[in-house]
């Protein structure tokens, strides 16, 4: 054996080795995404195992294929920076030349007014608006060419970024987007755990990176050293466990120490050594740097895995020129690498090795010093707070103040991150401050939808018997957390305790009464809701209490609506809207006034006006930054009533999905109920049953809510359809009694005709007569065409008299309620035929048939056809042609508008903006259009639309 020479390091950054199979998986994923299937690959592996290198290799492949590649990385020290990952990946900064990115950057920038304490009545914030903004931007980018998003170090991602990742998978299932997310097995936040479960359900691919195989390790050594390894060296690097970073660092250290020699054209180590630890190996490697460089790397490691030289000049008080010279050896040795305008430790583990090699006390001191110097230099509160939090000891009022400030600036964009910051401030604060901060922490948790955590924080703090003012705020927050969990009665009890307090200021008392009114309304206690709203209005101070006043006015109008008096309800809501318009910053509109107005207009059969009101409501929710699941449901409600069922299903599905995502489930029972109803009329009893189960499950899980009696109504109709007539009747009768007892007269015209029909079939004429009287009473009380139609229909069924039924057809026609027109026409025909007037029955059967065909009620069509056959009646003049299932003629008016706008080149978010729909709704419309026209892409659709425009007859 003869030593031939010293072996140098040929490459500090070796070529990519041993991951061909994994790269192949990513190539397949790119192909799938390009074919318009959102594809997610989660790459998991320990630090240093090669996740980032795999991502870099995938980036090269993506660019080679002409795909749009964007990458972002989360940082440990920025775990609370809202949307940090997406800001990084998509380049969303206020100074961006792209107006969309600049707008999103502006939205994500800290709010200068964010210094007010956070309470349960604080503005709900911008988080969802920002989530939508990111999803819109991704959608638009992918609209131009397929997009690959590489997201590294997801284990450090902030809660809002994680939420956005989950939202993308829900909202863009057909987008040509590949998301490659890399993460270590630990740490794993609760948000990330939930998001990974969502990704798993959405069919995400999992790619676990294990140790490199021996051959690949040998290849890696050969690549780094320029010579294949000898047996002793191979044995030495086997101690690195197939971790490529470890192998590279070990080789670096061995070379630096002069331990490697060439033997027979192979690199060989002089002596066998004990297997080293990775951290010690890294430090061995670093120990060759000059003293001064090491002294600067320590404060640099305090700034995080990547840092700007400007920050380092601030925290070390050394000039940039001086730092450049001092850091040069670290850059030459690839300890630090350039990352845009920042410097980055080549790997997090290198930074960690330097950072954790300092005693804890020194680290804390450096963080504290960094925080104070960054504060002096005007750095954002969040950055200052992250350092001060790491450098603080219990009772550090300065650190607590900065963390509080950072949390308040953060809450509107990421309440989850704010809650985390408040939580850390609570741990450091003195007792009196801590209780006050718990209120803010719990309120932030409430906004983040972490209801149980909010409840737990409030209860722990209340057990410590805080001072009176804090106790009131805690109790208010606790009540909100309970109500939001559907534990309305428990929440109401807390509100009652709160209202017994003599210390409560008028504005807070008014709000507590307003919440009480809302809780009572949810429980179906209309009198209680009215009374509580009245108390809110009487105690609300003139110069404050705007929100409480507007909520109370809105709830009073809603109570009247539920009592079945839509004219009066509309008058009251218009007064409430006027008051909300006059409130400072129009904060009164945080109660969804215009959406309530739209509902009331629908009750009055004014569907076009309702549509316009929903447009106004959309604009307001957009400005407020809140999500709008209820808007989709209300739109679906309107389409259902007028017989536009394809559009109704689209809206309702979008609404219930959004409700599940945001936790705003107030209207999802209604949404599922209508979906069940439509499925039932279409003859899909299985789907109808599923929808009804979901609707009833919602009520059982979290109590009654807005119009949740519809779930029982639809259940009764389903039982009826399955032949369980007696059970259907008793279910329906119980629902009716419950509504009447609660004063929910809004349901009288809904339930009445079906209950009369079922009661007569069950031989309970008294019940039928009693119901008919009630419907007639309601119709007299408020002049509404559809109420009149319901009253006449009940009367006609009870008396077996076709005349009122024929009049009901006209009433429902005036009300534009096509499904009801068809049902009344069917009833009229049945009674006419029963009295022997088959000729008179025929036009009504035709009318019912044509109408049911037009709205796609297959089950009703079959029933009418059977009835016609039984009567020996052939259908008369055909009505408007039945909409076919495929081709251009199958498109609904809304779908045609969507097609026109897509053909103009608009992206989904742009179409949504033009049509005042949610992007999700547009997405669903497009999916339906693709199916009906048998096209696979927007480009094909646009080409098809152009052909159609040139030759409309084809």
């Amino acid at each position, binding site marked *: 054996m003869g030593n031939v020479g010293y072996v140098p390091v040929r490459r500090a950054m070796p070529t990519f080795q041993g991951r061909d199979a994994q790269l192949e998986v990513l190539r397949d994923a790119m192909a799938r995404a390009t074919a318009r299937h959102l594809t997610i690959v989660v790459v998991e592996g320990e630090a240093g195992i090669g996740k980032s290198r795999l991502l870099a290799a995938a980036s090269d492949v993506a660019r080679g294929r002409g795909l749009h590649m964007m990458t972002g990385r989360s940082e440990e020290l920025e775990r609370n920076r809202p949307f940090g990952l997406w800001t990084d990946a998509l380049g969303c900064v206020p100074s961006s030349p792209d107006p969309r990115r600049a707008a999103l950057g502006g939205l994500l920038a800290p709010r200068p007014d964010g210094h007010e304490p956070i309470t349960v009545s604080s503005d709900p914030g911008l988080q969802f608006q920002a989530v939508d903004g990111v999803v819109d931007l991704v959608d638009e980018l992918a609209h131009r060419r397929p997009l690959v998003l590489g997201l590294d170090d997801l284990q450090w991602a902030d809660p809002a970024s994680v939420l956005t990742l989950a939202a993308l998978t829900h909202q863009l299932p057909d987008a040509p987007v590949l998301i490659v997310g890399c993460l270590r097995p630990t740490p794993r936040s609760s948000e990330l755990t939930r998001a990974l479960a969502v990704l798993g359900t959405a069919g995400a691919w999992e790619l676990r990176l294990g140790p490199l195989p021996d051959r690949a390790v040998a290849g890696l050594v050969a690549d780094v050293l320029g010579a294949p390894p000898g047996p002793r060296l191979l044995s030495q690097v086997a101690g690195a466990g197939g971790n490529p970073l470890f192998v590279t660092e070990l080789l670096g250290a061995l070379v630096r120490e002069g331990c490697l020699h060439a033997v027979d054209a192979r690199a060989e180590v002089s002596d066998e050594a004990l297997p080293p630890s990775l*951290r*010690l190996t890294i*430090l*061995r490697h*670093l*120990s060759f740097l*000059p*003293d*001064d460089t*090491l002294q600067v790397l320590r404060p640099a490691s305090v700034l995080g895995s990547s840092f700007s030289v400007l920050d380092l000049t601030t925290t070390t008080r050394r000039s940039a020129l001086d730092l450049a010279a001092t850091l040069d050896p670290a850059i030459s040795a690839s300890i630090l690498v350039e990352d845009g305008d920042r410097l980055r430790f080549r790997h997090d583990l290198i930074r960690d090795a*330097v950072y*954790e*090699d*300092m*005693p804890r006390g*020194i680290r804390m001191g450096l963080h504290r010093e960094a925080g104070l110097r960054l504060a002096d230099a005007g750095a954002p509160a969040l950055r200052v707070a992250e350092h001060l939090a790491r450098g603080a000891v219990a009772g550090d009022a300065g650190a607590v103040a900065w963390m509080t400030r950072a949390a308040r600036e953060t809450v509107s964009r990421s309440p989850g991150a704010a809650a985390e910051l408040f939580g850390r401030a609570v741990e450091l604060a003195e007792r009196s401050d801590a209780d006050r901060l718990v209120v803010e922490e719990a309120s932030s948790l409430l906004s983040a939808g972490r209801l149980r955590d909010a409840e737990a924080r409030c209860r722990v703090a209340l057990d410590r018997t805080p001072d009176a003012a804090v106790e009131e705020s805690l109790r208010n927050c606790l009540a909100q957390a309970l109500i939001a969990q559907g534990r309305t009665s428990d929440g109401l009890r807390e509100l009652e305790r709160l209202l017994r307090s003599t210390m409560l200021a008028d504005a807070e008392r008014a709000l507590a009464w307003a919440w009480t009114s809302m809780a009572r309304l949810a429980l179906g206690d209309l009198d209680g809701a009215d009374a509580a709203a009245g108390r809110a209005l009487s105690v609300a101070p003139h110069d404050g209490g705007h929100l409480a006043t507007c909520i109370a006015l809105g709830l009073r109008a809603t109570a009247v609506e539920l009592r079945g008096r839509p004219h009066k309800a509309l008058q009251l809501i218009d007064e409430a809207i006027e008051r909300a318009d006059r409130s400072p910053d129009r904060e009164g509109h945080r109660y969804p006034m215009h959406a309530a107005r739209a509902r009331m207009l629908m009750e009055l059969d004014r569907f076009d006006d309702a549509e316009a009101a929903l447009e106004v409501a959309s604009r307001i929710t957009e400005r407020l930054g809140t999500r709008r699941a209820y808007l989709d449901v209300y739109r679906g409600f309107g389409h259902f009533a007028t017989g536009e069922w394809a559009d109704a299903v689209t809206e309702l599905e979008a609404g219930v999905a959004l409700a599940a995502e945001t936790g705003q489930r107030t209207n999802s029972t209604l949404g599922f109920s209508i979906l069940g109803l439509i499925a039932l009329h279409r003859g899909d009893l299985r789907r109808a049953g599923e929808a009804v189960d979901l609707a009833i499950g919602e009520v059982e899980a979290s109590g009654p809510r807005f119009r949740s009696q519809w779930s029982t109504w639809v259940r009764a109709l389903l039982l009826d359809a399955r032949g369980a007539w007696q059970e259907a009747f008793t279910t329906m009768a119980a629902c009716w009694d419950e509504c009447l007892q609660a004063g929910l007269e809004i349901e009288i015209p809904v339930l009445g005709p079906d209950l009369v029909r079922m009661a007569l079939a069950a031989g309970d004429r008294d019940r039928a007569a009693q119901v008919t009287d009630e419907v007639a009473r309601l119709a007299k009380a408020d002049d509404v065409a559809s109420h009149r139609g319901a009253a006449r229909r009940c009367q006609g069924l009870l008396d077996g008299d076709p005349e009122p039924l024929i009049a009901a057809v006209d009433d429902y026609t005036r009300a534009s309620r096509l499904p009801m027109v068809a049902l009344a026409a069917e009833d009229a025909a049945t009674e006419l035929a029963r009295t022997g007037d088959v000729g008179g029955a025929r036009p009504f059967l035709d009318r019912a048939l044509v109408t049911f065909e037009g709205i796609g009620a297959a089950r009703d069509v079959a029933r009418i056809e059977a009835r016609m056959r039984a009567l020996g009646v052939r259908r008369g003049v055909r009505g408007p042609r039945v909409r076919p299932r495929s081709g251009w003629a199958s498109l609904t008016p809304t779908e045609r508008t969507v097609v026109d706008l897509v053909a103009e080149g608009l992206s989904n978010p742009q179409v949504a903006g033009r049509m005042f729909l949610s992007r999700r709704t547009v997405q669903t419309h497009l999916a339906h259009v693709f199916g009906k026209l048998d096209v696979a892409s927007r480009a094909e659709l646009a080409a098809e639309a152009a052909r159609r425009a040139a030759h409309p007859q084809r």
Partner: protein
Amino acid sequence: MCAVEIRVYVDERTPPAGQVRRVGAGEPIPFSGWLDLIRALERLIAEPDEGPAPHRVDG
């Protein structure tokens, strides 16, 4: 080649901190962290058998 005896006095364990000295020669060198310890060991090993430890001059 020669045998060198070095003693490490550890006051703290994570990260290690204390002193290191070469038996029979020179003053103990304080260290704080593995990096310091590695560098102190390098210095002690590099020292000649007699006389004060040479100070490394960087830059």
